[in-house]
């Protein structure tokens, strides 16, 4: 019954990756939102913002916010993946 498109191993592997992704990406999102300096190397600051101090700070804050949001988006996508994978895994278990 149902639409089974993943094998047991594949769904398990995806499920584990998504669980990891959810945990790590949510944590990273929080750290970006609170502007953790440990992540400063991962920011994207355009070249033209380097000249002025205020523009630089603005660009930095924007980048922190944007990446933080992106992390949450990716975590949400992984949550979706996890749901699909667990459904598939459950189907595999039943059959």
């Amino acid at each position: 019954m149902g639409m089974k498109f993943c094998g047991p191993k594949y769904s398990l592997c995806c499920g584990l990756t998504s669980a990891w992704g959810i945990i790590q990406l949510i944590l990273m999102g929080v750290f970006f939102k609170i502007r953790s300096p440990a992540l400063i190397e991962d920011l994207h600051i355009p070249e033209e913002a380097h000249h002025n101090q205020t523009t630089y700070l603005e660009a930095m804050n924007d980048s922190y916010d944007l990446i933080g949001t992106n992390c949450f988006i990716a975590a949400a996508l992984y949550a979706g993946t996890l749901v699909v994978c667990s459904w598939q895994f459950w189907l595999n278990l039943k059959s």
Partner: protein
Amino acid sequence: MGSLFRSEEMALCQLFLQSESAYTCVSELGELGLVQFRDLNPDVNAFQRKFVNEVRRCDEMERKLRYLEREIRKDGIPVQDTGENPEAPMPREMIDLEATFEKLENELKEVNSNAEALKRNYLELTELRHILKKTQGFFDEREGSMEPGGQTSLTQNLLPEDTKGPIQLGFVAGVILRERIPAFERMLWRACRGNVFLRQSEIEDPLEDPATGEQVLKSVFIIFFQGDQLKMRVKKICEGFRATMYPCPEAPADRREMAMGVKTRLDDLNTVLSQTQDHRHRVLVSASRNIRIWMMKVWKIKAIYHTLNMFNLDVIQNGLIAECWIPVADLETVQLALRRGTEKSGSLPAILNRLTTIEAPPTFHRTNKFTKAFQNLIDAYGVATYREINPAPYTIITFPFLFAIMFGDFGHGVVMALFGAWMVWKEKPLSAKKTDNEIWNIFFGGRYIILLMGLFSMYTGLIYNDIFSKALNIFGSSWHVSLSDEELSHEKEFMLDPTNDKQYEGAPYPFGLDPMWQISTNKINFFNSYKMKISITFGIIHMLFGVALSLWNNRFFQKTLNIYCEFIPQVLFMCCLFVYLVMLVFHKWVWYGGVGSSGETAPGCAPSILITFINMVLMKGYEEKKPGSVCEPYMYAGQFGLQRFLLVVALLCVPWMLIAKPYLMHRNQKRRQMMVQANGGEGVIEEGGVTAEAPAAEQEDMGEVMIHQGIHTIEYVLGSVSHTASYLRLWALSLAHAQLSEVLWGMVLRIGLSSGGHSGGIILYFIFAAWASLTIAILVLMEGLSAFLHTLRLHWERKEVSKESRIVGTRVEFQSKFYYGMGYAFIPFAFETILEQAEENVVAEQCK
């Protein structure tokens, strides 16, 4: 003392068994699994032993069971494994078992042969049905073409008028393999010179060949011919091509009748076939319920008779004599088992007799599922000499710890620990699932090691403050960037000044490394020095610990000479050079700093420890303080004198190790010879109850002792240096690991993070998956494996035993300091291991 520290004390025992009770006693001992029997007739080949017949019968039973199992598997019936462990059946039960298997096998064989016969019958009938159906078409065509009188065939025109009418054409119908058709046709044409007429038609659905069970494609053919000669010829050709011919009546009514008959017979056959199949299935299902237990029983019987074959026959008393190694602690249990065995058979009790021997007993470490994996690591290097100190208990801590120094990353540690914890958690269901997958078996066997390695890596990861190459700022960094905006906007890099209390709090980060280092540009320089120093420190502690263990070994074996002539100079040598080096490291860590007093520990005056140490060993002369320089050339007052003294002591240790032992041995030997002469040259001295083996062992060749000692000393002195360097691999691998994880983050995950816009979330989704799988594959699996191997190497090294002089050559790092590993393992006779092995063979066979 716990047996994990030393191997169990073993006793060689002689066992007198009555021939009636021998079987039951051995079976009890097999269940116990604490006795290693010695083969008392090694010269006798397998066919000349006493219980050959029984072993052969067991083999026969095993063969039958394997046949049954194959049949069961062919039908896809699951074999029930109840996990039950049946006792070894009594010898008289063996006959019952044999009868049962015989009956089952015969039944199955009969069913199979019946089924085959039925299938053949069925095939013939189907072919006949096809022939009737297809040929009907040919006949219809012929009759159809004959009906209009004008269009007559070629033959008819050649014949005289009066013979006109239906010509008596004979025909043969049959079935042939489809691929033979072209050759068949050509052969017919040539042999009969074109005087036969062949029609053929393919049978659409493939038929089953009853002999092989394969599906084959066949064709129906019908050959028309005239005259008997041609008929003979055609029939011969058909036979030659293995075509099956079927009688086919000429008259349409007969054919129709025959078709009806064939149809009813086919239906009947179908019901019979399905009933046969049902019967076979029933037989197999009932067999599948018991087959596991039968298998186990047969394996046990076979193992018992194999063991009995190793015994000596005592013809006079009608008994069997066995020799076996038994752990002394278990003598009671063995006695009890023997009593149970004799009670079962109701004969005279078995007698267990302890023998004295000079033979080296086997090494037996009692392990549980946790210590087993560690013991295996040690045994892979060499099984401990009997009663030698066993490094396994120390390895439980040192192995994961040295691994973790190299694998220090909290994130990777968590992944590894979770994997190990899952295997430990699901231990029972996982171990019940037997597979042939070697890699999985290795991982599963080392599940506790993996768990511990993961946990220790989490700890070192926190110390290094490294989580996927990022740092956690839990307690608040001690460094602050308190620079004005003016300064910030001009310079690209800043040096934080540890003397400035606005930039450095003065107290270090409370646990592990300061998170600030992870984002600083001189991170590598800092980690370099730190990791190199801790790896040297741990290496020296580890080696010194190994040397210290040799003291216990020497005391245990009462080799006082070794303590004074080897252990003490070894420790002195190590302390004077390398422990002093470690102390210099700590001295530098503690006393030098940004803010310091003047004099030796003035700021900026910290010397290079490496250079200091090299200068000490190369005996560089006293250094004066350079004029105009603030720094003292020495770290503390009197350093020069102390270093000279230590070096001299260390150098003195070398001749001490080299000469003392051979000299003392030589002197003892001389004294003994004098005493022998004084006693009248008898050659045998009673030395306070020492057994007679002692003098023989003492009479060693002095030359050999000298060479042995020389090599031992050189090995130790050179080894100390090279092993210290060898421990630097801790430093190298840990740096490499940290660097690799940083590169992976920077090259892969950063692409996902810094891609702008809100579509970045979706890109991050995919990039993260790539990063995660690369992390597992490269950093956890590959790096983990390499760190594991290096840790293993630090624990034991290649061993080269040169055969001529029995000298144990380069053995290194930890174990070489005390471990000889020249023993042989205790392999008890246990049903558990025998069954496991047999089962593994079965699994391997199935996987093929």
